[in-house]
């Protein structure tokens, strides 16, 4: 069975609102939580919200450019999560804590 496009039943508004809500949940998570791992995870959540909206518009217009951009966003997110977590491990080794409230000065 050929899948009819979903935008005939739910409109593109639905994915606009859903992606905005997920993005704002990520923003609030970055502002609320002080654990560095959770902050990195909320950044991944924000990137995924943008991915969802890009795929929605790519299907809406029938072009594959949005989905290829999502592919490159996943590449960048993987590289950034790797390097961010290795910096986190290094910080933990020096200070024995992942509380980002302690790292607001560049020296000491």
């Amino acid at each position: 069975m050929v899948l009819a496009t979903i935008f005939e039943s739910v409109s593109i508004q639905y994915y606009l609102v859903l992606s905005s809500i997920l993005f704002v949940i990520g923003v609030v998570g970055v502002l609320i939580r002080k654990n560095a791992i959770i902050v990195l995870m909320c950044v991944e959540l924000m990137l995924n919200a943008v991915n969802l909206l890009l795929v929605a518009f790519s299907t809406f217009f029938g072009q594959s450019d949005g989905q290829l951009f999502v592919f490159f966003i996943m590449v960048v997110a993987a590289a950034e999560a790797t390097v961010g977590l290795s910096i986190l491990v290094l910080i933990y080794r020096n200070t024995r804590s992942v509380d980002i409230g302690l790292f607001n000065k560049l020296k000491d």
Partner: protein
Amino acid sequence: MNIETIAYILGGLTIGSALMVILSNHPMRSILYLVVTFFMISANYVLMNAQFLAIVNIIVYAGAIMVLFLFVLMMLNLSKDTEPKTSIAMKAAAVIAGGSLLVVFVAALSKGAHTAPGVSADSINNVGLVKVLGHELFTTYVLPFEISSVLFISAIVGAVLLAKREKQVLEQ
């Protein structure tokens, strides 16, 4: 159960698991809720016939990046007691800021075009298949594709260099 009900239930589950990510006390539960969120987003991709991205999302995000987070979390051995706390005033300020950002987003985006443009059903059903995406990736977007391999090499070298332990000097 038509497709609209499925889409709304899926959206509700996605938002619920994303909220539990930021509201859990234990960091391990936050990571597991984020894995659930990624699976829900992949289900949304399947609903839009983006098959390649649904599978790649599960493999890359839920299968590799989240496993990396879990490894780091288990190595740091955090628990609920060592979780740093934010004050109530800071939480209220963050929720108010996020809420106003959401209001601005929804207000700005809800007046756009509502009707689908006149694309052929063939192109809508074909976009998202591996063959079409692969053809585009290797003809139009071949330069970013090759440069992303350089990005990966630099990320690997950077991660290994940063996390390597320094050799201890042995006293003879």
